[in-house]
């Protein structure tokens, strides 16, 4: 009932304070929406703004709308946005560099002019005095809305209903992809693969360590270089491949050295050390590494090359 009081009465200092604080937040959010490089961030900023607006609705005695705002917008719509973002690629940051000549200046000009005009318009609009929603909301805001929606605005309401249905159907139609030709049979697919000289057997698994289960870590080839095939295309295309070859090898080497020092004996103890085939492979790799470890620049170069490849993949 505090809300109603607020709504009914002329603005209290409380509302003033609330307005100034949240208003600032809202504007910042809006600016964020426009200016953030990554669209995810924009989406989040927008969500913030919307929540603030919901609060303002409440403050203005539009309780129903306030709630709807939160549920529909901040809930449904923003989620929809985020889904699409995920589909399109969350992390892809688009540059804010303008490509169309003069577009930015025109936009700025129009925006500024338009803003000024609106403000001016509101300024000289005679909205000095205002009547609160006290009696309008007397029978309850929701009931009030419901009454007029189902009496005066009933047609509009029905039509919007139709609109929603249409929109839903439209969305399905748009996103549904019609299969034009017959789906290939398994045999045909297999033959196609052979014909195209594709990689016939299943792809190798990503490098998995006991430490954590990470699909974004490429498996290492016998020579210790990471194998691109082991990581899914999506991750590769997003440039999210985490290359651990060098770190892992370094750890292993350090471990063996320590055990060597600790046991005082070299290679032998290492045999029958931890790990099955995988360990063995790794050990072999380690050996190889050790052989070449004295000329580390080569390794670095090696690593650099991998890094480059990753970055290229990212692009």
């Amino acid at each position: 009932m505090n809300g109603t009081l607020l709504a009914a009465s002329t603005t209290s200092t409380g509302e003033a304070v609330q307005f100034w604080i949240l208003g600032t937040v809202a504007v910042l959010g809006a600016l964020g929406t426009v200016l953030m490089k990554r669209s995810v961030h924009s989406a989040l900023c927008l969500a913030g703004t919307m929540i603030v607006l919901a609060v303002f609705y409440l403050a203005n005695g539009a309780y129903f709308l306030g709630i709807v705002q939160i549920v529909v917008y901040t809930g449904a719509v923003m989620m929809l946005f985020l889904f699409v973002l995920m589909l399109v690629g969350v992390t892809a940051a688009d540059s804010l560099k303008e490509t169309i000549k003069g577009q930015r200046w025109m936009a700025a000009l129009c925006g500024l002019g338009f803003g000024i005009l609106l403000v001016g318009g509101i300024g000289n609009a005679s909205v000095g005095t205002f009547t609160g929603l006290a009696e309008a909301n007397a029978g309850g805001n929701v009931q009030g809305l419901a009454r007029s929606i189902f009496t005066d605005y009933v047609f509009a309401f029905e039509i919007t209903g139709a609109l929603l249905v249409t929109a839903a159907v439209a969305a399905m139609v748009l996103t549904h992809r019609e299969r034009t030709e017959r789906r290939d049979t398994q045999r045909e697919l297999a033959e196609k693969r052979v014909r195209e000289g594709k990689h016939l057997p299943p792809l190798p698994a990503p490098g998995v360590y006991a430490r954590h289960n990470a699909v974004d870590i490429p498996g290492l080839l016998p020579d210790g270089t990471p194998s691109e095939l082991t990581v899914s295309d999506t991750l590769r295309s997003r440039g999210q491949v985490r290359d651990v070859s060098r770190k892992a090898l370094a750890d292993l080497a350090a471990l063996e050295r320590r055990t060597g020092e600790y046991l005082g004996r070299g290679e032998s103890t290492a045999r029958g050390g931890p790990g099955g085939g995988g360990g063995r492979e790794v050990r072999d790799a380690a050996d190889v590494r050790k052989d070449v470890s004295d000329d580390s620049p080569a390794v670095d170069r090696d690593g650099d090359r991998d890094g480059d490849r990753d970055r290229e993949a990212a692009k």
Partner: protein
Amino acid sequence: MNPVNYLYLAALLFTIGASGVLLRRNAIVVFMSVELMLNAANLALVAFSRLHGNLDGQIIAFFTMVVAAAEVVVGLAIIVTIFRSRHSASVDDASLMKL
């Protein structure tokens, strides 16, 4: 404080949203800016309904929300389709109208 400030705020937000539409290439962000504009409008409507002491403003705002929802659904569907076909969500890439 005079609730007219709500209107000023709405104007501000609207303008920001508009410039967002004009400045961003990413279709999704453009859409968000549009949403921002709609919300600004809604805020103004709500403020009006308070000013005039009747609920019509709110009802309009309500309808706006519904329409906005529908628009978002379709719009996003379109974006997805475009992205599928040309692997980009940039509005500038969809410039076949250019000579």
